[in-house]
């Protein structure tokens, strides 16, 4: 498989990847190394895992990180209720203590969480560890073992090694600095807001009903908006929502109905301060520049 065929596969899933990103993905696949994606919110970091899984017919296993995420929720947990019931039942059946213990800590009572599940699939899945920087440092340490050896150690069961190595994609958007150890184990790609050309391709792939003229206006407008000083810069998903909204309003040109464009801005601007700073006039000026 080459970089270009990978790009074509992703494009088939409606994901337009820039060259650097495609190369990083290609290497992650061929070297079986985790890939760390960084970039602002809304540039399509999460989406790429979805597109890759769909393009290659792999399963997507997703782990959303948050502060306080621990091994019990990310890797595995014992099914305590069943264990308790089983101990009671064993006492009535007169099972020996050793036999009970053997059985209690067997796979039967193991609850797989995303990381362990990804390791135990017969065909290698895409494992998406989303927003890793939201989890705390302790969790990063758990990850290091898994990413280095693709193995999980469960004290009662021993080390479980991956049946097939999952394709690991980690995303981060700079909530906190990741440790060097984690960075070193990963390939790295920085995903930026797309260039005008790429964004036009994305729009064409995702919203084919939008006319070319309007599409160019939309992309120009959103790119101009990203250069404004906003609290939350609109990403690609917002741009697609915006075009869908304009489509729903039946607009063929941005300067046609300033009021309608201003209403549709609700899909792009997500804080009251941003909403206040981009008035109808400013929006028209940006749209005019874009056209």
């Amino acid at each position, binding site marked *: 498989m*080459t*970089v*270009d065929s990978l790009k074509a596969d992703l494009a088939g899933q409606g994901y337009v990847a820039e*060259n*650097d990103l495609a*190369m*990083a993905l*290609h*290497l*992650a696949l*061929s*070297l079986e*190394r985790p*890939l*760390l994606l*960084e*970039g602002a919110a809304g540039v399509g970091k999460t989406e790429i895992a979805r597109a890759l899984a769909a393009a290659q017919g792999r399963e997507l296993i997703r782990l959303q990180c948050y*502060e*306080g995420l*621990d091994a019990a929720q990310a890797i595995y947990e*014992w099914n*305590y209720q069943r*264990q*308790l019931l089983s*101990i*009671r039942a*064993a*006492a009535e059946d007169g099972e020996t*203590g050793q036999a*009970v*213990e053997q059985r*209690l800590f067997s796979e039967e009572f193991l609850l797989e969480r995303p990381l362990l599940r990804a390791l135990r699939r017969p065909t290698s899945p895409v494992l998406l560890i989303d927003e890793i920087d939201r989890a*705390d440092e*302790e969790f990063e340490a758990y990850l290091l073992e898994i990413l280095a050896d693709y193995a999980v150690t469960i004290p009662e069961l021993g080390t479980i090694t991956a049946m097939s190595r999952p394709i690991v994609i980690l995303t981060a958007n*700079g*909530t*906190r*600095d990741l440790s*060097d150890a984690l*960075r*070193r184990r*990963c*390939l*790295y*790609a*920085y995903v930026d807001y797309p260039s005008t050309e790429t964004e036009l391709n994305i729009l064409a792939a995702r919203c084919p009903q939008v006319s070319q003229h309007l599409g160019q206006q939309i992309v120009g407008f959103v790119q101009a908006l990203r250069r404004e000083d906003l609290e939350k810069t609109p990403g690609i998903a917002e741009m697609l929502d915006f075009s869908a909204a304009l489509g729903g309003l039946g607009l063929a040109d941005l300067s046609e109905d300033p009021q309608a464009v201003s209403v549709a801005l609700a899909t792009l601007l997500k804080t009251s301060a941003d909403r206040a700073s981009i008035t109808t006039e400013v929006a028209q000026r940006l749209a005019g520049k874009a056209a």
Partner: protein
Amino acid sequence: MSLRGQITRFAARDPGPHARIAGFMAHLRAQGWPVGVAETEVCLTALTCLPEPSEAHVRAALRAVCCGSAEDVSRFDALFDAYWRNGGRVRTRVAPSGSKPGQKSGAHAPTAPGRSKEQGKIDRPDTGDGDGDSAGDMSGKLVAAKGRNLMTIDLRELIAPKDIQAAEAIATRLGAALRDRRSRRRKAARRGQGLDFRRTVRRSLASGGEPLHLAMRKRPDRPVKLTVLVDVSGSMSVYARPFLAFLAGLIRADTTAEAFLFHTRLVRVTGALRDDDPLRALGRITLLADGMGGGSKIGETLQQFAKGPARRCVDGRSVVVILSDGYDSAEPQTVGTALETLAKRGCRIVWLNPLKGWKDYAPVAAGMSAALPHLDLFAPANTLASLAALEQEFARL
């Protein structure tokens, strides 16, 4: 390829691609990149996976392997060109010389002479002042003059090692006073609010399934992260001594703390201050803090902080300490908006103002009054002793 002529020609005795990649890694390492043998190996394997050995592909592949952050990505191209495209001559400091001219536009006069100091002429700071003089004459009066005057002061003469030791003790105590944020994570503990099922079940095996001994879990306390911003503009120069000692002590005592200096620019000095030798650390920040004693743009630098480094090092478990007198040469309202942005990150903000200790002091400086509504604590501090006295106040935060 039309650029073939520029591509580095390696000597005939060059042993081959392995050595060249290793050489490239050594080149990156010389620039301070944390790449080692493992990366070299990955690079070589990566190159075998390429569909065609074109320059664009090789560049993209090496970038994916060697880079580890957005900053690395922006520097990578220059380093790549320096090694593979430079006729074999590797420049030692590529990135700084490339980025200099752009940064200079709009900078205040005092920063100009300092820039030249950055290249290591610590003993004779006056040598670089030639162009600084003329620039200073154009834009500033008092500011520029002060800037030059202080430029010759070496922080190592200003601060004694025993100051740093005292400051270390104070910083440790202040840090300890702040340690009260609960973790979201639960940990096994002798007593606590939640049951630790894992251990409870294991223990109940011994008692035939009856959970006689309940193991508990609780949420442990986590240390608060301190970020300190010290104003080193002209008006603050008399207080530089205790504050910088405090900064040096804090960074040495607390491994998660971050330190920044600001005047007309914002400089991160954490790395420099973490040097093993305290005096050498001060020497290094003397180099970094070039515009010291010049003008101040509090609002602008705080804004820069809130939008840049704060996104990385400030979260709901942080306390941001600003040491400044609030005298700002720029639009005062920007201080308010900057602090508002910063407060949205969920941190607590402490402003220590050396002037507040004065009799009849009122925060009339426009910048200061704009800042007040966003502060969690506004307290006086002008000596190490007064910083130590803040322990109680910090504990109350």
